[in-house]
């Protein structure tokens, strides 16, 4: 009996030594996760229910409950309006990036001379399209599509859409090129995705007498749906630090405003995150549904 117990103990000791090495390798990440992700997220929730004042001996927390949120939503309604406007823009930006990236990837996936060079060109903006440089370029009016004024896109949008759609469309078009600069990684993911389609599928469908148009919609597109979903999520994440993301500036400005402070700024960030989460879940759900329907459960 005792020997059995001893053996068990030895066994677990051995197993945990094994596990211990694993945890040791994970240790830096775990510390980092706790101190720079989990703890800040928790603190951020805590902050958003408090009013924080800075006194001589550190931060002073006063419990205000949902006051920050109520204030943000009902009393000072500027922020929700900005947020909604930005989300309307995002609903246009994301499909725009996805369609552009898909189209360019489709072209880049063909064989033609100078393919390597073209790939390089379309990835180039990833290298420099960030932050201040982009804002600087945009303030010089360099982000507009050159034919915007020529074809009176503004008037066209006005006639066809009207209301908020028009504003959002015009706004997006004014930043069109800079927005498309955020599609470099997506293009590469699509190209890599195309490589995973077995060539035999195309051969089979050609033998069956399908046209290239049909083979695109019957094979290429359904196969790529998971990649489209992946890219949608990547795009959403990439837009967190998009230089025209108004939330960035508002949150950091309210941090240092005496009347609002850290608590209010945290509440603002959470409202933003909740909307983002809805968007991400929607993208996941959509991908799941579509890929199930296409018959490629991956």
């Amino acid at each position, binding site marked *: 009996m005792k020997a059995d117990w001893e053996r068990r103990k030895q066994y677990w000791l051995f197993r945990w030594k094994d596990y211990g090495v694993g945890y040791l390798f*994970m240790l830096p990440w775990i510390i980092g996760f706790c101190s720079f992700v989990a703890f800040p997220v928790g603190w951020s929730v805590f902050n958003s229910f408090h009013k924080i004042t800075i006194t001589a001996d550190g931060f002073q927390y006063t419990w205000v409950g949902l006051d920050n949120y109520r204030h943000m939503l009902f009393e000072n309604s500027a922020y929700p309006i900005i947020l909604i406007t930005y989300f309307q823009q995002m609903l246009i930006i994301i499909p725009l990036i996805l369609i552009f990236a898909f189209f360019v990837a489709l072209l880049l996936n063909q064989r033609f001379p100078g393919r390597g060079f073209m790939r390089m060109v379309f990835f180039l903006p990833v290298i420099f399209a960030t932050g201040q440089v982009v804002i600087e370029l945009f303030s010089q009016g360099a982000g507009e599509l050159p034919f915007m004024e020529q074809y009176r896109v503004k008037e066209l949008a006005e006639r066809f859409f009207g209301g908020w759609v028009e504003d959002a469309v015009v706004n997006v078009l004014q930043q069109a090129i800079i927005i498309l600069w955020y599609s470099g990684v997506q293009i590469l993911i699509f190209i890599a995705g195309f490589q995973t389609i077995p060539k035999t599928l195309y051969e089979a469908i050609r033998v069956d007498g399908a046209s290239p148009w049909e083979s695109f919609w019957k094979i290429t597109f359904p196969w790529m749906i998971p990649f489209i979903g992946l890219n949608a999520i990547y795009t959403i994440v990439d837009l967190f630090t998009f230089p025209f993301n108004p939330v960035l500036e508002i949150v950091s400005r309210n941090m240092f405003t005496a009347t609002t402070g850290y608590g209010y700024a945290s509440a603002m960030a959470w409202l933003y995150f909740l909307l983002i989460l809805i968007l991400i879940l929607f993208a996941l759900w959509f991908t799941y549904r579509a890929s199930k329907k296409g018959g490629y459960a991956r």
Partner: protein
Amino acid sequence: MRLAETAKRLRLEAEDRLSSRTAQRVKRFVLGQNLNDGWLAKVIILAMLTVIAYLYLNPLLEMISTSLKSLSDLIDPVVGLIPREIDLHNYIDAWKGLRYPEAFANTLFLASIGSVFQVFSCAMTGYALARLNFPGKRLFLLLTIVTFLVPPQITIVPLYMIYHELGFLHTPFVIFIPALLGQGVRGALFVLIFRQFFLAQPKALEEAAKMDGASVFRLYFRIMLPLAGASCLVVFLFSFIWYWNMHYEATLFLSQGFTPLSIRLESLEMELIGNRALSFGEEGAKDPVSEGPRMAAAFLIILPPLIVYLIAQRWFTEGIERTGMVE
């Protein structure tokens, strides 16, 4: 007589057939067997891509052209993309305004040390998630992905408070410590790249090393990490570029004292007014006097990563394919 006629007919037929075969060959050459491998298709694809690429890179070209224009060229609407004469004056202004050598050294220091730390920590985490065995591995993988999805807006406020308490604000530690702990810029993505690489390695390697009595650490540092050299390079390059361009975190955590290039661009005009008695218009306006130096400064900022990209271009494009997101 009849024989001659038949022969003639046959010859004509053969000729006809031959010419139609050449025609077919030409047709195949131009249009191709499939939709996408003919000569015509290639020309169309190339033409389309060229047009898109031109539109795509137009802001960049405009930036370079503006930065090389003298003031009179900038004001003159006749002068298009190509300046009448190349004027390096803007670059001198920008160099002074950014205090380029110092800011360059700061940014280089931040980006290179930060990315080395990140390679180190992310490789370790990726290895653990791929090859080591411990309870809760799936949970950790899930949490890694979650860290990718949490917007920086959420954590920025508490992080500011944490760094403030620790006294890290406006020192390079705000970059180095998270990088060393696997939480730097897009750390989750890099962990996934390494995990994917280590997953693809043969199990026999580990078994052989274990047989020979090597510890896990020895195995990792002597065998696995050197094997992952290419992945390390990919991660290093991406990390370097993203740290170099880091702007949002930098505006909050590094806005004074130890400032990288991206912050200096904002204060460029102030610097220039101090340096030379230039009169600038309102902010954001298309002011020709400040436009040149600003574009020159922007170009000076993106030049180093651009050079890195041109040299190491292959690894960048391969890098994405290695992430394993594509599985």
